[in-house]
């Protein structure tokens, strides 16, 4: 349905996106995962025709959209990372304005506004000025505005940044429902891997302008099929223990997160007796040792050597 072919975007000397290839099929939810500054927003801007790539092509139903993006624009709805709303206008006035921009009018527009407000749970607040809304309500309205013209593809750029867990769940459920009930195609970018894991059928992982992995959740996790992720827990760590772990050649990756240390080690190696020995030697009391399910976070850590939110 929609393809990015060998896309590169250069800003002076910096390459924000490097030779990126990506496709989105009708009716699927595709996740674009990566830390801040990975190039996700640039890729989205190119995909939605806001930005012209330095090289490469964007194809919608096999037609190039670089020079004539009109047909793509008609079926795309974009939810920017920022709250792209008029804060001094009410929810309904915002919807009317953007609805008219999408050339909806009269009864059609009126009905559509009511329908979307219902979907995003803001019917009761339709007359209220946006600046009086909570962060979560603004985010929901931000999504609602993008849905007014019934887009086939919804591009969501980190739509849950800076909101409470309740609103976040509401948004995730809304996206799931839109995809299920209306077969809406969704491109969802985030640096929250649990959101992407929950929502997406296929995932692209970006870092420093490069696509470093792509596939279904399981395919991506297969990258770590030959390795185990082990979690160690203790009341406190000491420098000697951490240094010993870092210097151990059998440990491929290591992340210290408060009372927990996550290690990625080869499946072929029995590391447990070694860990017990190192702990005893450094006088560290281990409280728990678990073999964890591989997560996308682990894959990202494995591929880039750093955490998604670093």
């Amino acid at each position, binding site marked *: 349905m929609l393809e990015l072919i060998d896309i590169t975007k250069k800003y002076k000397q910096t390459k924000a996106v490097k030779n990126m290839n990506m496709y989105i099929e009708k009716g699927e939810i595709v996740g674009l995962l990566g830390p801040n500054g990975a190039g996700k927003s*640039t890729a989205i801007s190119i995909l939605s*025709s806001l930005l012209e790539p330095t090289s490469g092509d964007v194809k919608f139903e096999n037609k190039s959209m670089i020079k004539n993006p009109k047909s793509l624009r008609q079926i795309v709805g974009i939810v*920017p990372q920022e709250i792209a709303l008029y804060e001094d*206008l009410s929810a309904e*006035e915002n919807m009317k304005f953007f609805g*008219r*921009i*999408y050339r909806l009018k009269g009864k059609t527009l009126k009905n559509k506004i009511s329908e979307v407000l219902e979907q995003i749970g803001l019917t009761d607040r339709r007359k209220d000025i946006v600046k009086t809304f909570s962060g979560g309500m603004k985010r929901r309205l931000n999504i609602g505005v993008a849905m007014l013209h019934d887009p086939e593809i919804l591009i969501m750029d980190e739509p849950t940044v800076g909101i409470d867990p309740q609103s976040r769940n509401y948004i995730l459920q809304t996206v799931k429902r839109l995809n299920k009930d209306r077969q809406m195609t969704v491109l969802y970018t985030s640096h929250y891997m649990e959101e992407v894991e929950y929502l997406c059928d296929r995932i692209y992982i970006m870092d420093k302008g490069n696509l470093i992995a792509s596939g279904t959740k399981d395919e991506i996790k297969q990258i770590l099929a030959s390795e185990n992720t082990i979690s160690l827990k203790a009341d406190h760590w000491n420098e000697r223990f951490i240094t010993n772990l870092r210097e151990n050649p059998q440990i491929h990756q290591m992340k210290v997160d408060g009372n927990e240390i996550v290690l990625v080690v080869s499946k072929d190696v029995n590391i447990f007796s070694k860990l017990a020995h190192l702990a005893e030697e450094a006088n560290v009391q281990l409280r728990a040792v678990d073999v964890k399910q591989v997560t996308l976070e682990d894959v990202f850590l494995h591929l880039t050597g750093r955490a998604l939110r670093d």
Partner: protein
Amino acid sequence: MIFQMIKKQFLQFLRNPVEILLLIGLPIILITILGNALGNLIDGGEVDLTFKLALIEHEDEALQVENFVTELGSGDLPDEVITEIAAIAESLAPIETFKEVLHSEELNDMIIVEEAYARELDAIKADDSYATIIEFPKNFSADVLENILLDGEMNPEVIIHYKAGSEIAGNIIQQIVTMYQEEYTLGTFLGNNGIDPQQLQKMGTESKQEVSSASLHEPVSAKAYYTIGMIVMNVLFMATTIAQYAFRERQSHIFNRMIIADFSRWVYFIGILLNALIFAWIQALFVYIFAYFAFDVIWPNLPDFLIVTCFFTLAVGGLAVLLTAISFRSNSEQIISFFSGVVVTIFAFLGGSFFPSGTGSFLQKLGDYTPNGAAMSAYLSILRGETIADNIDHLVFIACFAIGAIIIGVISYPKRGAAS
């Protein structure tokens, strides 16, 4: 869709009373302050400039003239010449003539002249009631006569003192003395070259009559002047306000939303143009209506006034488009801040919003090359009773400015969304 943009802008203004207060309230406050503070200077009302002057002669003039005539006799001039020069010297009496000038009808109401002795000088200097003191040094008149009648080399000087805080009085006396000296010098020059001073006076009168013909038109009151001055200045802020709103649309990605909705960028900046034009119109109208009721500013020819307003608000629209385009291109609000903080002040100064720059002066000519200055000249001219036909050059300039700003704006507009 343009209507939606105007409606949206209207709602935004409506919900920002501080913005409305700044755009409409500020010019009204400024008109009131400036109209009252500087009103007397423009309206020709009475400004109290009366001051006291002490006149001190260090030597009696009659005695000096007598000595001068006596000394003539000791030279080798023929008797007839001595008699003629003595007669002229007695009639010239420079200090007496200067006193006559000070006691003339024109200066009598302004300057209170008191003659004093040289020994009183220190006491007078300490007395704050005297604004200025003029000292005629010893042998002053004799030196003047020798200079004029015998081509002497002495160049006698009058000493002027003025007290701190009496700079205006000091300046006036300085000018009177200078004029007086020039008259004497001119008289001597004409006499030496055989030119009739009467002939020169006649030419001067004719020239003065020609200059005074400008005052045949209706006078413009200070409040009317500042109503126009403040409106043409403050309406420029509408361009920056609209450009600021547009830049916020860009920053919050609303503009991107519009581009993705395939909203033409041409339509977008026509919306910016019309927003600035319409709201500048409303802003100007509010202030004019207020000025009509509060300050009796009445337009003798309403259609002409409306035509000038149309042209000027079109220029404001053009400026809004230009500022929006540049801020979009540079991805910075700096140009808007610079325009509202610096350029508007310079334009207002040149355009004559703060004080009248004088008909035909360099400053006024320069001011006519600003949109507000050209509009101000046109408004003032209409208020004085002239017609739109007398202001075609101003209107042509404003229209060219508006079109130029729009064209530059269009050229510098980003082709795609804000992301580019």
